[in-house]
């Protein structure tokens, strides 16, 4: 009997497949279907503090726009009793999801003010989330801002949030850090129970006809997995935090690689958007089939087996592509002195 169980952020999971933030998370029915298809937990879409703020400002602006300006039209809209201007909608959603499914539910938060991070983290916990993922989505565009300052900002934030909640906290990070392993360690020391590697940023494209910058976020590909694998493998067992891979998990093989690199869970979105919710079940079956074929007994057995710590040639993780290319040519030099 295969043992697919894993733990993540202290949560016991029946398998390592966790659908992550996507439009699928916005409908309770879809989350129920994900559970039915075999998902072990769900990481909800993020509550964006900045978006709440922007929507509030926009609402305020446009309700004022043109008002108190003209005798016959003192305003242009009726007054509503109230607006879903805080996190109410998101929090209600968590509560509804918790009622609808048995699997753990991980809330996700993207804040932009210290007060906002703390307040909304508490509210997400109160709404019933089993864990919290901090989606730190920050584009360091300011030339005056040093890497040190940015790293400190992350660390302070994690420390503040961890202090203010009792549920486990994971931090979703981008890979743009000079000394990622060290930074991961410091994030863990700051109190993070898990690291989610890696965030994918919007990458603007250019429209050559209109000469406009077009923001775009395409679905991920399997080949994006490798960056994640590398870093999960590098920090597994060396940094005191659970690990989740997100970005590029598309197949059973991808899931297995994540596990072998050392991840506790493999998160996925794009493949489910592309192929539909039932694909999750098929993927799980393929994982099982592969494990059966290759006579693995449990996920625990393979977890971290290919990590930096456990592989025969850990240097393979450290060398840059350039080095590997040179190595490839070495035998030829040997043969033709």
């Amino acid at each position, binding site marked *: 009997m295969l043992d697919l169980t894993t733990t993540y952020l202290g949560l016991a999971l029946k398998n390592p497949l966790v659908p992550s933030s996507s439009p699928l998370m916005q409908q309770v029915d879809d989350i129920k279907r994900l559970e039915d298809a075999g998902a072990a937990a769900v990481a909800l879409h993020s509550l964006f503090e900045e978006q709440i703020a922007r929507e509030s*400002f926009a609402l305020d602006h446009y309700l004022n726009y043109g008002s108190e300006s003209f005798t016959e039209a*003192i305003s242009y809209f009726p007054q509503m009793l109230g607006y879903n201007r805080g996190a109410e909608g998101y929090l209600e959603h968590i509560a509804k999801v918790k009622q609808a499914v048995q699997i753990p539910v991980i809330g996700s938060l993207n804040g932009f003010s210290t007060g906002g991070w703390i307040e909304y983290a508490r509210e997400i916990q109160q709404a019933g989330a089993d864990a919290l993922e901090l989606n730190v989505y920050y584009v360091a565009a300011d030339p005056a801002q040093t890497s040190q300052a940015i790293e400190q900002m992350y660390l302070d934030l994690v420390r503040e949030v961890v202090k203010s909640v009792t549920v486990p906290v994971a931090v979703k990070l981008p890979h743009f850090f000079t000394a990622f392993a060290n930074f991961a360690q410091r994030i863990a020391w700051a109190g993070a129970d898990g690291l989610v590697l890696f965030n994918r940023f919007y990458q603007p494209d250019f429209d050559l006809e209109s000469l406009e910058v077009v923001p775009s976020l395409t679905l991920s590909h399997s080949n994006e997995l490798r960056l994640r694998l590398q870093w999960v493998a590098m920090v597994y067992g060396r940094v005191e935090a659970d690990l989740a891979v997100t970005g590029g998990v598309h197949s059973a093989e991808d899931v297995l690689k994540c596990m072998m690199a050392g991840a506790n869970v493999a998160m996925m979105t794009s493949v489910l958007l592309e192929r539909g919710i039932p694909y999750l079940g098929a993927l799980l079956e393929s994982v099982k089939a592969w494990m059966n074929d290759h006579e693995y007994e449990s996920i625990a057995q393979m977890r971290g087996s290919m990590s930096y710590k456990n592989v025969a040639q850990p240097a393979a993780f450290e060398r840059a592509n350039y080095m590997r290319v040179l190595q490839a040519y070495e035998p030829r030099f040997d043969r033709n002195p």
Partner: protein
Amino acid sequence: MSRSMVTLDANEAAAYIAHHVSEVIAIYPITPSSAMGEWADQWSAENKKNIWGTTPLVVEMQSEGGAAGAVHGALQTGSLTTTFTASQGLMLMLPNMYKIAGELTATVFHIAARALAAQALSIFGDHQDVMAARATGWALLCSNSVQEAMDLALIAHAATLKARVPILHFFDGFRTSSEVMKIEQLDEDDMRFMIDDELVRAHRARALSPDNPFMRGAAQNPDVYFQARETVNPFYARMPQIIQDTMNQFAARVGRQYHLFDYVGAPDAERVMVIMGSGGEVAQEAVEFMHARGDKVGVLKVHLYRPFSVEHFMAALPKTAQKIAVLDRTKEPGSAGEPLYQDVVTALMESADGARPMPRVIGGRYGLASKEFTPAMVKGVFDELKKPNPKNHFTIGIHDDVSHTSLPYDPHFSTEDPATTRAIFYGLGADGTVGANKNSIKIIGDETALYAQGYFVYDSKKSGSTTTSHLRFGPKPIHSSYLIRSANFVACHQFNFLERFEMLHVADHGAIFLLNSPFAPDAVWERLPRSVQQTIVEKQLKLYVIDAYKVARETGMGGRINTVMQTCFFAISGVLPRAEAIAAIKHSIEKTYGKRGKVVVEKNFAAVDATLANLYEVQVPTNVTSAFDLRPPVAAGAPAFVQNVTAEIIAGRGDALPVSALPVDGTYPSGTAKWEKRNIALEIPVWDKDICIQCGKCVFVCPHATIRAKVYDPQCLDGAPETFKHVPARWKEFEGLRYTLQVSPEDCTGCTLCVEVCPVKNKSETRLKALNMMPQPPIRARENENWAFFSRLPEMDREKVNLHLVKDSQLLEPLFEFSGACSGCGETPYLRLITQLFGERAYVANATGCSSIYGGNLPTTPWTHNDAGRGPAWSNSLFEDNAEFGLGFRLTLDKRLEFARELLPQFASVVGQELVDGILNAAQDTEAELLKQRGRVQALKEKLEALITQSPNVPIAETARHLCSIADIFVKKTVWIVGGDGWAYDIGYGGLDHVLASGRNVNIIVLDTEVYSNTGGQMSKSTPRGAVAKFAAGGKATAKKDLAMLAISYGSIYVARVAMGASDTQTIRALLEAEAYDGPSLIIAYSHCIAHGYDMAHGLDQQKAAVASGYWPLFRYDPRLAAQDKNPLQLDSKAPTLPLEKYVYNETRYTMLKQSNEAAAEKLLALGKKDVAARWKLYETLAQTNGKDGK
């Protein structure tokens, strides 16, 4: 019993009672009563209950006539029913009102009394409307103040049930309906005490019911109608006492005692004024002041005007009264006197018993259309009464130099209480001044024992409008229902106002003057106009400055300086202790903005906190140093009428214009907007001539016709200013000619639509286009000079342009320019385009609404004429009749042409057969043909005039005179019927349908904003499903009416649906085809609008999205194609490619539903998507059928 004190206006006060004691409410928006319906609708949407524990059913009708019909029906079936209206709305209710009264039905209509459209429309307050209803058999009960509006509303609802006589409860439009006052609020127990449930059940028992069948509404013959009409007399005889008894009943519980006629003043008064409405409050203030100084004067304030109780009137009138002045706020031309005057005279005559001498009675008019009525005028009337032969049929408050009716008065006479704080604030609509002041009144009303009053005055512009707020706070009840004329606090929220108009004339000696200044405290003095400096020095004003825009910008408030200026007011006015005031402001911010989100509250808090550190008192120098002064309201070159009349109105001195200055019949010159340089744009577009491709799109979309293009001979450049830009024209046909794109800097509103539509980008710096916004002040003078030169360049020869091309059409002179419409308006580009294509031969019938306001509200009009003196002939009749009004134009033209064609052949021997044939058979389809015909007509007129001169007395000379007077008809004319969706879909739909069916050659353009824009965003039948509007707070549940398809069903009407932002060429094509079609045409034009709730700079993108989502399919239906066995329906847009949500969720009207009721929003969006799909399928199917066999 302790009741709460509330700060509100009379509209809210009356609606509060009406909603509590009604079951059914049928409404329709009309200024200034709209707010009553809006409150009722909102409270029902919030599920607020009436005193019987059920939520009143509120329904919006298609017109006031419809509302009255629905009310009548609901009353006849036993509901407690009410409505709210004013002015023309009341006129439309009159037929039903006779029925309702004739059937002795208990109901109350609440009226914000307003002027009637006569020589001109006016939205402002007087009693013309209610006086026109005085014959209907309704009781007329008048409230003079906001408190009375609440109290008498309840008294009216209680009394009508007892009396079975319906009651018009009215108060003065604007002055009372919109005056914010601190009053005591009646509670539900008061209402239950006053309303007798037995009478409610009796009302129900009288209703129609199949369980107790009878008929009501018979037709009667000469034998019995008369007697039947007399049956009601006892009800009217009882009515006054019933109302007095109800007032007594109210007094017993609430403590405020009203009478049918309330007398104030000396018990032994010799001179008495009789007056009704808010003027009664003013008169009371003046009388109390004069009486305290020993004058034997008094005022009799009328509450119940109909039925007029002679008995109660005589009882209330002091027996000592020797001279009486009766003031009517209405005009009845040709009468023996205005109505109240006549009633008073009759009452006195009928009561004459010889025991005491008959008082001398004079009557006069005051306050028409909210003309100010002040204690000084009251004093003027009393002074007149002192004379041995006081003037009868007088006017007060104007200077009548024509009929010499006006009484003199001393404008400096003041009864203001020194203990009252009087503050005036000058602001911009957009800066939030009025909202802040409304908040301040509430703060003072709620937090202190002071009485508070606020009244707000707006100019008539929809963009860059100025607002003036008049606030009074004091320890005693405030009766001052007039504008503040001596203020101890004056605030100027916009620095540039200082050189635009005089404002410190209202400042008391030693008053505080708060100025929002971009200049530092030590630099501001030199920036003040000379007369402002002079007043500050002379009156020893205390000057405070703050750079409110800087504070607002730094605290995230953008252009809203409301919170900053409000904080300044409290900080320096001393109305409240400073710390207490700051706390109260913050509390009020939380109440006002809390539901919009905490970040909104926080940014307002930040603005409050940052204010005090930026507020400075300026040490006022003793010397006047400035070398500049107020700018003249219009340029020196303006025509005499503009100089003498228009300029005075622009300068805010219209009140001083004498009667003789004004046209007798409402006729005004066109082309006056160009003289009113409003300078409201902070930034204007600047042309990059090197990358411009001369496509004309910027000119095409400009809502204000402030950016224009010309192609001209290079020789015309002689004398051009140095900075005047020009390049070779990029037309094959215009080789060798020059091209210039020029902006009028002082007329531009800075909406940026032209920049948004510009398709060209700078290849090295893609943020730049061929038009780029730049600050206006540094380039104003230069561009003014360039604009002046540009304006003198010759206009394009109309024969040389291809009208179908945007590029070409935008070289034509617009004859609609510089309107006061909203910046970025989506309607006005269509009107401007129509004038470019057809303006010099167009008649325009304009429905009341936004387009009639920005088109015809004084002081100026954007409709103009060309150098030849030809241009659109424009008129506005009413809201409901515009299609018929325009058809009337057509009927005249058709008949006139027929007559002219009958006359012309009689002159063949005089003018030549060739000319006669040429005129009669002329094709007039192209500009060249039109020009030729103009030449022929000119020749004809010259020949006819020669005949008349040579042989003035021959019989045919008279016929020649006739022909000469109508010969212009031989040049083809075009009739345009213009209006919004409120007119076309709702109130005017019956007429529109009839005109469309008439087969006559009229062109109807519906400027479809999908909402009643002018009255503030009420739902129309054009409002789309899922959009929030007033009267549709839960999102409109039903789909938009497909007006186009209804018209298409006739088969004989040219119909087009256009959106200039989505396809400019299709828009032009549709206009040209519609005009060319010899029959009725209907164009439904997508018009983005401020009421949609998004930045109108993106209006064109939103139009594209509307089309791409399939929400607004573009098409043309041309019956001429059917005649050629072709399919008449041509779809001009492609199948939907954009999800509907990508279109709708750019607009607050949709998102606010998502944010307040997501489930409803989702449901309505899903239905909206079905609507789009179904409509597209229908159109596509129709467009694909073969015109010949219909398959």
